[in-house]
């Protein structure tokens, strides 16, 4: 089930709402080559800046993290493009899931706000 949607009030398109709160799984769809998460640089922190527990990488190109209602999180991603000209998109891992962003070889990483 898809739980993420773009916050319509955020013109930057980098804030996503979670409904219902719970486990969120995002995945990389490689368009050319292979893009995977860099485990060291992919984290979720709470509003106090502390890394949350319970995150996991089910596969090298997917990432899961828990959310609680009323909490705001910062999702920071870091990507590895193998070979370096690989591209992809970051999406919620579900049928018709929202697209979080494009991944280019020059992207390296991204920062999102997740509101549950």
């Amino acid at each position, binding site marked *: 089930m898809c739980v993420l949607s773009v916050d319509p009030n955020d013109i*930057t398109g980098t804030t996503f709402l979670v409904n219902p709160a719970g486990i969120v799984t995002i995945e990389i769809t490689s368009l050319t080559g292979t893009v995977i998460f860099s485990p060291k640089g992919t984290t979720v922190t709470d509003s106090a800046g502390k890394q949350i527990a319970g995150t996991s990488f089910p596969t*090298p190109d997917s990432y899961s993290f828990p959310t609680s209602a009323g909490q705001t999180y910062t999702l920071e991603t870091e990507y590895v493009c*193998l070979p370096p000209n690989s591209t992809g998109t970051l999406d919620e891992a579900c049928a018709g899931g929202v697209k979080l962003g494009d991944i280019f070889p*020059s*992207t390296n990483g*991204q920062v999102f706000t997740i509101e549950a």
Partner: protein
Amino acid sequence: MNRAIVVVYLAVAMAAISPSRMSGQAPSPFHPKTDCGQSFEQYRAAYQNATADYQNAEADFQKATDDVARQNAAKAQQDANTKQQSARIGLARLFNLREQPGCVAYLILAAYPNQTRAGLFLGFVTAAEKQVGSTSSTSGSTSLVSKNFTSRLLSVADEYGALTSSTSGQTTTVSGSLDQLFTAIEHVSSGAFVECAVKTIPGVWCVRSGLMNFLGRLSYSTSLDLNQPSTITGTATGTVQGTAQQVTGTQGGNSFALSQFTAKGFIWAAKPKKEDLLKAWTDSADTPAATARQKLIDIQKAAGDDPGGAWQKWLANALPVLLSSSKETDIYAQTQELMSTFVAGGTSAQDLVRAALDYSASLASTAAAERTAFDKAAWSKPILTFEYDYNTPSNQPTNSTFRLIWGQSLKNWKMTGNAAGSIYNSTPSSSIPGSGRLRDIQLGIEADRNPYQLGNSLTATFGAAYYFQNQTSPAILNVSPSSPISGVSFTGLSSTATQVFTQKGKIHVGQLKITLAGGSGSGWKFPIAITGSNRTELITKSTIGAQVGVSYDFDSLFAK
């Protein structure tokens, strides 16, 4: 060497950052061939198409005469609106340092060409000072220059990782893949010479990734014998002093000679799994891109990227223009306004350019590391390789070997198969009976089992190999009374003989090997092998022997 490297860097910089190439002549603020440029055009086109759809649906709604038509038109309006929103968000992300730092870094560097040129120059000098190793005259230098190999270019390439050199006895082997020269330069170029995919400095040279992928499949290896005999010619320069006379000596001969050249090309390799790629990346060194990216994000934060902040106001005002305007000047004005917003946030233009250049340099390092990790993962899978060897063995006619190599892992076993043909590079003397250009045909197979764990600190590896060689032409040795072959003595050989040859025939060689090794990090190995053959190239009698060795990796002492 410092000066040479700086000169090379400057040549690259001055040629690359020319003012004419810095001007934004394209309607897109990004280079049209980059991902940023292509996405910019795609999102603009999607937005404009959606806007046209919306207007058509609106007209349909006005013309609708029944509820069904009105509902269809309303649905079409809603769909068009969703597409507009999606395109707007997609385009907005291209100008957001939290989302696409590479795209915005390009805009920053394009906006300040003079500062970019100056920043790049300073970066080169700093990098050159940091990177240059010890000179050939320094005690403990690892440069090839100190080993008679007088090519300065090759020594620099060696120092920067463009090739690998090793020395065993009096033989130096230089090897590498053809893309390593590019990745080595990329690694130290501060972003001025990169794969096109990660180019963020406008106008600089770049190498297409497809070419890099191709060159990465080709490797070479050259062995040089550094112990070549040289001759000293003495010329009498003085008058005879009794029974003695002064001479002036001059040295002749080469200080080194090619002993083997090998070229190898991957014909086919299985696609690595994502897990293999992740492991290869995890094993590689860290790269500094995250730190450089955070600096850029901090600049945007300082410019007010929270709701109601100056940067968000700029985005809100700029988006309609960036999405719809066909005038280059309008779009250029918005990127200039973005720079003004950054500067108004407290970051000077110089610091803005420095941060963008740092990010460009970190991307170049990251790309070089990614390519290394990719090659490591890609070429560790089942592969089919073609190899060409040019051999110049001492005291033998030169020959060439063409070899196909197959490698594959089967559960706990690693299998390797070889098929090869060897030819003499020139037709052997007709006085040697049975000789021909085809020297021999070779087949080989080897199976190595992954290590067995025997207790906590002992592993055992088993291996078996079989080799077959059909010596279709006699092996030939060049002989000369003045230059005897080391380790070989002849009896009853005619003083006029210049070549000797052996019998043709089939050679079968088998080997069983077990290697005992200590646990992780212990560094010691104890290989034991039994090898038997029906004959060798020179000896026509069967042989069997055992080989026992011991090795210790002293690096393991310092790895703890």
